[in-house]
């Protein structure tokens, strides 16, 4: 096995270096072509995202290929070899496979469990396949990595809980209202985080969207962006009872929403539940509001606490994921060790002999009328047919194995004769 994985990620390389590398990485196809031009490399995959740049390769000569891949990265990073080597990691053989599995399962991601990385690997694989850069080995590893990712997602809770403040808010809304669809939302003030939360809510098809801002023109502008209705800031107390979810993020020094305002709104709402999200610092909503019945008030620290504890539980789930990866590595190694000429010939023969035995057993009823000799002759004939049929494929395999290019043939035979099905 001569599988190499070389690369850098958010843990090993600072942003500036990753940036430099991915800036020159606008065009994945050319990079792939460049990698495939390295004579020692038989199969290659090039993966570049904002958090990582990695090359996975199957090489004839490990050391030669690594040296040339290093040159490739130094050249594109436009950095001294010394600086670059500090950021690079290099894995061989089953450790390289393990690394890819961990990346695909999103254990190696900056935000553990995020789903994008799998899509990015699939894209990189598609590009590689389209340019004939992959073969038996890489195809197998990549397909297996997709399966690992699927298993980890369904068998562990790694992607279960929200790990961003805005998603945490959406999940809380679900715990309170059941369905978010049709709930009215009020956005007070502008800010990146509150707008992000609003966007998440809109994607769940909320009902009406109201927007208030001290500068009315700003509210009107935002209302256009969100297809909502602008409200004058002074009219807020009058309109509060119409909404189910309020997100505040103004720069106001004092409280924008006070207990009497919320109490009045709850009365007009006939005690229907109200969810308040205060993302502003300093706070926009008087904390005493949280004491009111049927009102749920969360500020930025509360949401951040949820995110932190969710991240912790993702880390626990990651340990389960490592077990799954170990299992899959074992499966991969089994598959790989079968990819040799001798075991393949043996299992091919076993399969054929099994078929003969089965057929003779099936025919035993009418064969009872035959004499012992006649029966033996039939068995001899069946065996010699099988030997004739197998002769050419086996000779071919042995010839190919002399110059190390038997892999595709072995894989094809194993696949076509179903030698790996148990």
């Amino acid at each position, binding site marked *: 096995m001569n599988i190499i994985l070389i690369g850098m990620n958010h843990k090993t390389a600072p942003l500036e270096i990753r940036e430099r590398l991915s800036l020159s990485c606008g065009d994945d196809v050319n990079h792939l072509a460049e990698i495939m031009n390295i004579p020692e490399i038989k199969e290659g995959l090039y993966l570049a995202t904002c958090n990582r740049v990695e090359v996975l390769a199957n090489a004839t000569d490990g050391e030669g290929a690594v040296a040339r891949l290093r040159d490739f990265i130094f050249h594109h990073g436009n950095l001294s070899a010394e600086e670059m080597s500090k950021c690079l990691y290099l894995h061989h053989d089953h450790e390289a496979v393990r690394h890819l599995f961990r990346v695909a399962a999103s254990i190696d991601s900056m935000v553990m469990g995020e789903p994008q990385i799998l899509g990015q690997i699939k894209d990189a694989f598609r590009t590689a396949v389209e340019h004939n850069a992959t073969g038996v080995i890489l195809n197998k590893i990549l397909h297996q990595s997709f399966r690992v990712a699927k298993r980890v997602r369904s068998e562990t*809770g790694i992607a279960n809980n929200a790990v961003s403040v805005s998603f945490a808010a959406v999940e809380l809304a679900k*715990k309170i209202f059941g369905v978010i669809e049709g709930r009215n939302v009020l956005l007070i003030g502008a800010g990146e985080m509150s707008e992000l939360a609003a966007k998440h809510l809109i994607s769940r098809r909320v009902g009406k969207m109201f927007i208030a801002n001290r500068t009315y023109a700003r509210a009107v502008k935002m209302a256009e962006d969100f297809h909502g209705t602008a409200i004058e800031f002074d009219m807020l107390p009058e309109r509060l009872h119409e909404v189910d979810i309020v997100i505040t993020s103004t720069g106001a020094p004092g409280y924008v929403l006070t207990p009497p305002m919320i109490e009045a709104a709850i009365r007009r709402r006939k*005690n229907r*539940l109200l969810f308040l999200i205060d993302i502003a610092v300093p706070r926009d909503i008087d904390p005493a509001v949280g004491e009111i019945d049927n009102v749920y008030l969360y500020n930025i620290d509360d949401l951040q*606490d949820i995110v932190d504890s969710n991240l912790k539980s993702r880390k626990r789930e990651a340990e389960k994921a490592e077990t799954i990866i170990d299992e899959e590595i074992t499966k991969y190694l089994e598959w790989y060790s079968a990819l040799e000429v001798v075991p393949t010939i043996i299992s091919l023969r076993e399969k054929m002999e099994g078929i003969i035995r089965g057929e003779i057993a099936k025919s035993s009823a009418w064969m009872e009328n035959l004499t012992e000799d006649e029966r033996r002759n039939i068995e001899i004939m069946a065996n010699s047919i099988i030997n004739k049929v197998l002769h050419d494929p086996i000779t071919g395999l042995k010839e190919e194995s002399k110059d190390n290019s038997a892999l595709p043939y072995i894989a094809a035979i194993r696949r076509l004769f179903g030698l790996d099905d148990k």
Partner: protein
Amino acid sequence: MDIIFFRLALAVYLLSALGYLGSLYTRRVLVARVSTWILFSAFAFHTLFFAMRCIKTGQNPVVSFHEMLSFFAWAMAGIYLAFQLKTKTRVLGAFVSPVSFLLMIAASKDMAGYVSIPAALQSNLVAVHVILAVTGEALFALATCAGAMYLIQEGLLKNKKVSSFSKVLPSLTDLDRINHICLMLGFSLLTLGILVGSIWARSVWGSLWQWDPKQTWTLAAWFAYAVLLHQRLAMGWKGHKAALFTLLAFAVLLISLVLTSLLFVTAHRFI
């Protein structure tokens, strides 16, 4: 023969209760989904038991105190399963199935033999009275489960303890809706049940109402629920207050259901 189905139902209720509690412990919805099917089969066995008893004896299968408990368990499970079809409140089963199982245990104490029904009770009115009243009470029990879960979930959300436990509990709005629906239905059925009962009482005891301890406590519970419904419908009570009051009203109902039979001398006790 029919008693086999009773015991089968009892065992399967236990199985589903364990399944539901397991799903709470492991926080896995799949486990709860399987438990719902187990509960469904327990309900099916239990239904068969009632049907066979009815056919065999040709009389109302819910007469004695123990039969009432068993019918209570059956009604609760059935109503929950019906809700399960319509709402995302699977975890409610973790409250319903243990209660059904415990009721079955209590009922099993005196279930093997057949009771012969006194002539006075062989009226169809009695069957209707018992079935309406007990179904109504089972609905109240379900409303109480939903109310208890509401208070737990609310406590978690108010105190910002959004653990994975709060994740498996249904949303506040769903729980409040179940509480509301169960109260409305339960109140209607209990009212009808009491009316039918007093019509029968008039024909046997000569008057509509005796101020018997059992009747008095049931009336008290009925009033508690009437107040609660009024607050909900007219005053717009929702959520916390409604859930809390449901628990209180059910406590009164429990006295009328269980304690009066054990502690007081009551004319309402026949067998």
